[in-house]
Every structure is written in C-alpha cells, then in structure tokens.
C-alpha cells in the first residue's frame, strides 16, 4: 500500500487533492495530512512516504523550504515531491524542479492534471 503525505494549510485543498489522487489510482493509499511544512516533515521523518504532495504558501514552514529539507535529508531524498500551488508559472516550475520537485501543478487541481504529472509513479 502506498503512503502519501499531503501538506497544505487549507483543509479544502487537502480534501480536493486527496479525492483527485483517489480517482487517478491511489484509492487504496494511506493518506496523512499536514497543515504546514513542519508538520509534514515531522510525519515524514517518522516514516518516509511514497509521495509528498505539497503546497508552497503555508505558514510556519513554506513548501519551498520543505522541498529543500526533504532533498537535503539522506532519509527523505528519494521521496518524490509533487508541488500543487496557486503560485506557479513556467519560471517557478523550472526553479522548483531544479530544487528537486518531481512535478509542479497549478491550482485548481483536477484528476487529469494529476494523472499526467504522476504517470511515471502510477506505472510502477
């Protein structure tokens, strides 16, 4: 069973992302939710997930800082990070991928966007 951590300060966004993930093939996955980067990091340090889905704009620790922590941690470096944020454009996407993001999607999220972004993981 895949384990997925979703980090977003909005409960609505976390719920939407989870439903879209279930639709594209993660209906059997175990989901854990975090309201910011610190919470997400604490969840992942206990048990590295198969996928981290993270927003960028979050209080306490933002998504970009979380991405940098994950990619600097020997325990978490191999966790694929999917960024879903309203603050995305080609320039930001390139910057986040250079920092180690697996894929970047703009909000509002929908199953088709997720399916395309996660195709390599879904085919494993």
């Amino acid at each position: 069973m895949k384990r997925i951590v979703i980090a977003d300060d909005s409960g609505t966004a976390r719920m939407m992302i989870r439903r879209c993930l279930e639709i594209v093939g993660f209906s059997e996955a175990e989901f854990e939710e975090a309201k910011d980067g610190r919470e997400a990091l604490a969840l992942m340090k206990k048990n590295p997930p198969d996928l981290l889905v993270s927003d960028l704009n979050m209080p306490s620790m933002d998504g970009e800082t979380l991405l940098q922590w994950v990619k600097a941690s020997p325990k978490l470096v191999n966790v694929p990070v999917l960024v879903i944020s309203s603050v995305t454009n080609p320039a930001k996407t390139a910057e986040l991928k250079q920092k180690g993001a697996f894929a970047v999607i703009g909000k509002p999220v929908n199953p088709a966007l997720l399916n395309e972004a996660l195709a390599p993981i879904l085919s494993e």
Partner: protein
Amino acid sequence: MEELQHLLGEKLSGVVDETFETMAFINTEEVDEDQLPVNEEQLREARLLVTSPIVMEIHLHLAEELLHQIVETMYTIDEEDITDEQIVDVLAETLNTLAGRLMTELLPPDQAFSLSLPEIVPNDHTPLDENIVFSAFYLADDLPVSIKISAAALEELEGLLKH
C-alpha cells in the same frame, strides 16, 4: 489604463469561470454591478496581497448562500453539517486559487510572483474604497460574486504584462 482595465476584465472572467467550474461545478456569468442581488449582510469577504513583482490587494466577496452550496458540493455533506471553519476555508482557498491563476495569466512566463496567505475580513471592517482600481461582478447560480483590486499604482502592472 483603459487597455489594462479591459485586459484585467477579460483574464479575470476566464479565471473565475475555470476556478468555480473546477472546484464546485458552478458556472459563472459576468454582470454589471446593478444586476447583483446584493445584501451586504449576506456577503463574506477575503483579501490577499500580491507582494511581488508589484504590490496590490485582491478582495473576493461571495454570498454566504453560495459558500454553503460550494461546501455542500465539495465536501459532499448536508447543509446542517456545514461548519463556519469550512465556509471560511473554502472562501480563502477560492481567493488563493483565483489570485494565482490571474497573476499567471497576466504576467510573462519568466516573471515569478508572490502572494500572501489569504485573510478573512471581519464583517464590521471599514471598506477600503479609495484605492480600488478595478472591480468585476459575477453571478454564480444566481448568487453574487465580486472581485475588487486595490493598488497604489496599477500603472506598474502595465509594464509587466505579456500582451
């Protein structure tokens, strides 16, 4: 300035339609302000700052009844189970999504931008009318939606636009 207003209106309409359709399966229609069935007491407001490359504030007003409909649809719950926490979270997330999509549409692909976290405006606040540089009004399921942009100098945006 007139061209900028036209472009903002055009881009915003597309963004509003896409956001409401994707989040809650609701279609929107742009209308004149006097076509809105406005009752100020039944509107909820959120605001958010664009902090770079220019500074401006985006205000979103949604009818309380519309927010209830969206929460019911998104969370698949009954009216009596809706909480105020869900109402304000949906309002904030809708504004966050709208603002990001609008800036993505307006700015060139190589221009990064930053947004603050959305903030819910208390019902008893004093409206900030003097700096409103753009307003647009919509009906979503016959219920009012309005978006207002305040800025000290919107002219700065003209120099950054991709069109």
